[in-house]
């Protein structure tokens, strides 16, 4: 007979509830069960109306982010047994600072608009002919941006960032880290376009370096580091614009030569 644990889960039905309430469910604890397994158990066996997002259940789709005992977590990577000692309860809530659509489902449009605004794709000013072949990259050039490219858009960093909560127009950790990912890419020529969007009080200067985004990131992207490096780049850019008022663009800031 498996141990049991109580899950306190946020329920919110926009048609009936004025504000969210908690409902408790008793679920069995198996050694290999994660919080998502418990939610699936409730959905299958106890209450089919429980609503939440999930997909891959292996920490790569970024859908199942929720607050577990007040911490932003991927529920597919958070073992139930870690909470099952001494008759503890586990509280599962929707990701903080996002509007709640229903139960544990948050509204992500705002994040997606911010993400699009920072242009997280390769921007080319010149397009060499196909006959020149592919863009080659050395392992060092790959290493410069690889860490930031690990982001899975799970938005745990947004739920950890008090600036996001206090200032909803702040672009936020993941979007800035992804902008930096493309800035650091030797194939990209769009750093100045992104700088125009992000060198702004609602962009990089909105960040007060609480550092929680980095702590909760399940993919070790270090968004806080990316934002501080971006700030340094913006300052150097600004200083250079004084020294070389003409013929200067942000891409000059990058210290490594490009291969194009």
């Amino acid at each position: 007979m498996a141990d049991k644990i109580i899950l306190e889960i946020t329920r919110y039905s926009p048609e009936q509830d004025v504000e969210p309430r908690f409902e408790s469910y008793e679920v069995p604890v198996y050694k290999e069960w994660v919080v998502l397994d418990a939610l699936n158990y409730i959905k299958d066996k106890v209450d089919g109306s429980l609503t939440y997002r999930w997909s891959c259940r292996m920490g790569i789709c970024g859908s199942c982010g929720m607050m577990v005992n007040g911490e932003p977590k991927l529920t597919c990577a958070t073992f139930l047994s870690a909470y099952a000692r001494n008759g503890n309860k586990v509280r599962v809530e929707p990701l903080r600072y996002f509007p709640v659509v229903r139960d544990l489902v948050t509204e992500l449009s705002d994040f997606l608009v911010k993400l699009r605004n920072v242009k997280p794709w390769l921007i080319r000013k010149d397009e060499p002919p196909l006959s020149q072949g592919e863009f080659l990259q050395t392992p060092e050039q790959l290493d410069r941006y690889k860490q930031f490219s690990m982001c899975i858009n799970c938005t745990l960093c947004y739920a950890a960032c008090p600036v996001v909560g206090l200032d909803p127009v702040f672009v936020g950790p993941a979007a800035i880290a992804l902008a930096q990912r493309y800035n650091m890419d030797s194939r990209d020529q769009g750093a100045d376009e992104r700088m125009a969007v992000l060198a702004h009080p609602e962009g990089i200067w909105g960040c007060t370096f609480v550092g929680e985004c980095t702590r909760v990131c399940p993919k070790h992207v270090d968004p806080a580091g990316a934002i501080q490096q971006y700030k340094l780049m913006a300052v150097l850019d600004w200083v250079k614009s004084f020294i070389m008022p003409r013929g200067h663009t942000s891409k000059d800031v990058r210290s490594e030569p490009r291969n194009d």
Partner: protein
Amino acid sequence: MSAVNRETIKTTAVYTEFHPRWYRERVSVYWWLGQWQYLKFILRELSSVPVAIFVVITLFQLRALLSGPAAYARFEHWLRTPGAIVLNVISFFFVLLHTITWFNLAPRAMAIRMRGKRLPDLLVAAPNYALWLVVSVVVAWFILR
């Protein structure tokens, strides 16, 4: 869907046709009390105030020094009052907190690369601490000699 609705999606991404009411939680004024990491952050931000107090005390000390022995004796007398000692002790701890957290954060902001590899965090933070130690020793030598 009307043209107006479609326009709204494009510009503001507020789409409510199938979501009658979203619930948006208000952030409490005391958000920073709920979690140790947030409290630590606020203490670090607050440390700028004692740092400023430290600087002001030093400036007053300098002014007293320039105004002659009598003025400096008066200033020294004030420094010995319990209020001044408490203020200095609190300021000292906040200055320590400020310095240590600042040095620890330095490697995150500075991704220094050598021979194609990023320098380990320790190698970026250590020179800061080393310089701090050297400056402290020099200052101590001046005061205690």
